């Protein structure tokens, strides 16, 4: 009959109260894990899919003047060797080479402004969600020539469908107007108002030739990384490796401040929610455990009267709390992890509640939320709640050890 055994017996003695307390801890952790995993999933999606769609990559390299004056004459000369050295950096997963130019697109049915991107189709298939967003026709393939994929609203304005031809008018590197004929290969729908009415993808080589750009040149090079936490380190590394003033290096947050604000907003709101949840859980656990300690004042008084050292009593009460915290943390983390895993695989469809897309500071967010279970999303909420309950245990054990013996035994008699 050691202290741990006694603590366990005390918990078993009042099974209902123990179950309620463990359930409170477990439920709190479950919600915290699901929240954290959904936040992790949304943020991961924003930082991978959206960065892949909206920007060249997590880190963008371009001519220093290109950002203020997006003229194709301001290109990077040797994107091939630059790409090779970037690919060799630890943490860099993919390197995208892009030529971007603005122009006018015409068809037999209409015309409009267009943002043309020359891309490498196979790289795009691996790094951008756009190839999977084709609604009719197909996406570009390596080896394609004068072919183009268009945003749905742009195609509607031009009244074209896959197989139709369009003319692109743009200024080449010498500032001369050039026109090329392309055949529509596919039409995509991103749901983003800044893309669907204006964006078009063409093969990189074809656009270079059309713009009279030297072989291997590009207006932007994007580096995509697997673990976004290493981004700042990689930016420094790139600056150290190739930073000579002739190439500007930007993290995606500089390229897309709106998306940065959104990810910060998501993270902050989840922190606030998790904080409130923690307070709620601790309050519930505190109430139940305090009730247990107050109800057992007589028992503690007898223990102290018989000569039990207060330290032993403290240890017993703390162990009771620790058992509850550990069981609740394990159950909560397991159940939360399982639910989050389901939400990761199947997704949480909110379209019935929010409509087709969720508009937010100019971005259309998908309505299917996919959680992402990571060690951090699983362990941090469990550890925080566990630690919080242990802190309550410290307060409660002190309270138990301070039980006024005579008063508690007397019960009003003198």
């Amino acid at each position: 009959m050691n202290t741990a055994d006694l603590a366990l017996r005390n918990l078993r003695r009042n099974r209902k109260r123990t179950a309620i307390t463990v359930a409170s801890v477990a439920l709190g952790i479950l919600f915290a894990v699901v929240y954290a995993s959904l936040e992790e999933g949304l943020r991961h999606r924003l930082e991978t899919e959206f960065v892949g769609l909206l920007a060249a990559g997590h880190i963008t390299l371009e001519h220093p003047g290109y950002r203020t004056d997006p003229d194709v004459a301001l290109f990077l000369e040797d994107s091939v060797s630059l790409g090779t050295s970037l690919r060799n950096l630890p943490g860099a997963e993919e390197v995208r080479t892009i030529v971007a130019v603005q122009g006018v697109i015409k068809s037999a049915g209409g015309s409009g402004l267009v943002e043309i991107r020359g891309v490498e189709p196979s790289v795009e298939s691996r790094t951008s969600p756009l190839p999977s967003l084709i609604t009719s026709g197909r996406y570009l393939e390596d080896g394609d020539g004068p072919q183009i994929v268009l945003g749905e609203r742009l195609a509607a304005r031009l009244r074209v469908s896959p197989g139709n031809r369009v003319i692109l008018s743009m200024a080449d590197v010498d500032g001369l107007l050039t026109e090329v004929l392309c055949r529509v290969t596919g039409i995509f729908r991103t749901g983003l108002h800044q893309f669907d009415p204006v964006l078009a993808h063409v093969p990189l080589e074809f656009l270079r030739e059309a713009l009279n750009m030297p072989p291997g040149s590009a207006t932007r090079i994007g580096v995509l990384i697997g673990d976004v936490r290493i981004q700042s380190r990689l930016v420094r590394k790139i600056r150290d490796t190739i930073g000579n003033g002739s190439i500007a290096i930007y993290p995606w947050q500089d390229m897309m401040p709106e998306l940065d604000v959104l990810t910060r907003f998501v993270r902050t709101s989840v922190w606030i929610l998790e904080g409130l949840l923690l307070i709620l859980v601790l309050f519930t656990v505190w109430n139940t455990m305090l009730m247990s300690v107050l109800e057992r004042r007589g028992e503690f008084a007898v223990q102290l009267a018989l000569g039990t050292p207060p330290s032993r009593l403290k240890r017993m009460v703390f162990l009771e709390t620790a058992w509850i915290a550990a069981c609740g943390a394990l159950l909560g983390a397991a159940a939360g992890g399982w639910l989050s895993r389901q939400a990761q695989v199947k997704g949480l469809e909110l379209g019935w509640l929010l409509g087709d897309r969720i508009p937010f500071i100019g971005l259309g967010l998908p309505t299917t939320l996919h959680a992402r279970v990571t060690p951090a999303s699983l362990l941090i909420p469990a550890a925080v709640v566990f630690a919080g309950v242990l802190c309550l245990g410290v307060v409660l054990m002190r309270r138990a050890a301070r039980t006024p013996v005579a008063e508690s035994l007397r019960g009003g008699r003198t």
Partner: protein
Amino acid sequence: MTDIIRVVDLTKDYRKDKFVVPALRGVDLVLHKGEFAAVSGPSGSGKTTLLNIIGGLDRPTSGAVDVEGRSMNNLDGAELACLRRDRIGFIFQAHNLFPVLTALENAEYVLMLQGKPKGERRDVVRALLREVGLEGLENRYPRELSGGQQQRVAIARAVAARPAIVLADEPTANVDARTAGGILDLMKRLNEEKQVTMLFSSHDPEVLKRAKRIFHLRDGKICAPPSGIETESDGS
């Protein structure tokens, strides 16, 4: 005769809101080794307070209590806890057994606190439970025992560590008259056989008859017992 307990000019006041309620007003008593004595008095006369202070569960407002010649006034909380564990046994009115422990484990609790090896304490306690008539019930939990049986376990727990004195606060208050007689007889037998000094409180004249000496409390003072209360020695 060796003094086990010496109480000198003991007072205890309780504060209730703005008022001071005196519970003990200058109590003096001496208890010798091997005595079987009682504190009597009506409800609110200060019996429990006196026993609590003698047992080191409460502090007096003034006055002194010595246990085996050692002044309790100078002991801190930890020293008092050790004194209670090693030299004082307690029997409470409401049995106050630990509900999660069996009869055997309850009885050996103080021995466990003293750090006695499991085998040794089990031998002591099994013998003791046999003496108090609970052989075969060692593994029962308090809820599986009658009130009288629970009080016998409490008695075994109080004497298991061979204390200098056992303090019993109205040990028969929660049991019927027949059981009360049995409990007092058991306490008396243990007192005689093991030479354990016992001081118990009660206001039941039938119970008090078994005491060899009675300290009658009225309004916090020791006074002559009212007529009708006789000790065994008076009668003999």
